[in-house]
């Protein structure tokens, strides 16, 4: 436990850096995901194709390669930004399609009959969307969105391998300086991640059960 007393601040700083990166990425990726989802369910085929292409491309590329592109390849092409920013961009590009897919499946989970009923009762398109579809879609969208966010939390650790200081990087640094306390360091760092992922998972589970009852 020597390391906690002497270098607890390194751990704390890493944790805060991870949380900051997480928050920034959610703020950027969620709107992008909404746009992608809107494109994928829009009546215009070309928009659907573009969004689908983007989604497929990023879904099948390892996050490591996305990071590699932004951290090592892009700067050589003359676009030099701070590594922190590159990391957030990489995570955003990678996560947005997953958010989009969660939203899309939520909207698709609303039975067509709901909209048909709303239209036949005489609601306009915007009324149908506002009062009938979106309230139901939101409910089934939130748990998957949380699950994507949990995955994102874990994915922020990849940034630590690409010259960004965050929780994983801080664990590496600590493991170097306190070689005989690696188990304690491992447990402490893992606990930091679990502190975010487990509560989020609990919320998602609870919401999921609530939704199941509603339907």
């Amino acid at each position, binding site marked *: 436990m020597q390391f906690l007393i002497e270098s607890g601040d390194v751990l704390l700083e890493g944790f805060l850096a991870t949380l900051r990166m997480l928050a920034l990425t959610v703020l950027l990726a969620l709107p992008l995901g909404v746009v992608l989802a809107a494109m994928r369910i829009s*009546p*215009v*085929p*070309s928009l659907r194709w573009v969004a689908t292409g983007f989604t*497929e*491309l990023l*879904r*099948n*590329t*390892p*996050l*490591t*390669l996305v990071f*590699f*592109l932004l951290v*090592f390849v892009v700067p*050589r*092409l*003359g676009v030099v930004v701070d590594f922190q920013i590159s990391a957030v961009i990489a995570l955003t590009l990678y996560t947005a399609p*997953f958010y989009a*897919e*969660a939203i*899309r*499946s939520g*909207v*698709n*989970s609303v*039975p*067509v009959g*709901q*909209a048909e009923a709303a*239209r036949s009762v005489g609601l306009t*398109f915007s009324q149908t969307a506002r009062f009938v*579809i979106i309230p139901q879609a939101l409910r089934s969208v939130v748990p*998957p969105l949380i*699950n*994507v966010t*949990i*995955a994102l939390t*874990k994915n*922020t*650790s*990849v940034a630590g*391998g*690409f010259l960004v200081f965050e929780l*994983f990087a801080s*664990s590496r640094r600590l*493991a170097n300086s306190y070689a005989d306390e*690696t*188990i304690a360091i*491992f447990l402490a760092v*893992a606990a930091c*991640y*679990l502190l975010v*992922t*487990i509560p989020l998972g609990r919320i*998602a*589970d609870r919401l*999921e059960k609530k939704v*199941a009852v509603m339907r």
Partner: protein
Amino acid sequence: MTSVLYDVPGPKARRRSLIASIATGLLLAGALAWVVATLAGEGLFDAERWDIFQDPLVWTALGNALLVTLQVAVIASVLAVIIGSVFAVLRLSASAVVRVPVTVVLEFFRGMPVLLMMFFILILFATSQYWAVVMGLALYNGAIIGEALRSGIVALPKGQREAGLALGLSPLKARLLIEFPQAFRAMTPIIVAQLVVLLKDSSLGYIVGLEELVRRQRTLAEFYGFSQYGFSFFVITLIAFLIVNLTLSWFARRLASRTPGGRAPRRAARAAIGESADTTVIRTAGAGGA
């Protein structure tokens, strides 16, 4: 096509949609042209940046690294499915002495980054990078597969187990012979989707120092001159990953559309991975990994 959101388009809407399509097409073509022109302006398509790929030795080096990536993924997949099956059965054990510790371990493995696990396996057990990556992937994905299988078992109709017990099977036998095979079948698409994630995650070996495809391409690019060949090697690697992953994803989707299964297991699958289980979405299980 009927959708929840809009009616079947009439002639006017179709015309508007066509105009929008042409506009996006032009916009996209413009953007692509700009990117290509910029890259060409940087000289990235010059022969001198690609001449390296005439050398068969470069291809052999890349091919060997791709083999390492695939090998790691295959071994870890087999282990992950085995570990997942054991976890699933143990977590449903009637005795709390088994159930509680297994649940804690599962939650622990599931909630932390694979990368962290790989790194600490590497230093705690002083293994090679190869086994650190394999074991990290196997444990992490084993926990996730275990959770999926467990919810598959829970979602089965109660009568299945009761019928088994009524026939005189012991509780464990009923679990293994009646419930587990059904759950496994229902969860196969989820498991395969998770294995695609596992394959993608094997590239994390790059950070731990394993000579897999991503690291090898970097080593080669550095060796021949990163400023000259960095981009070319990256493009080749990206294409290699896309080919392998798209093939696997396609296979996962096919499997998902072919697997029969009651509503209950599907629903559980959705809960386990947190995604809708309709066939087009099965790929989203990928959100679970890096």
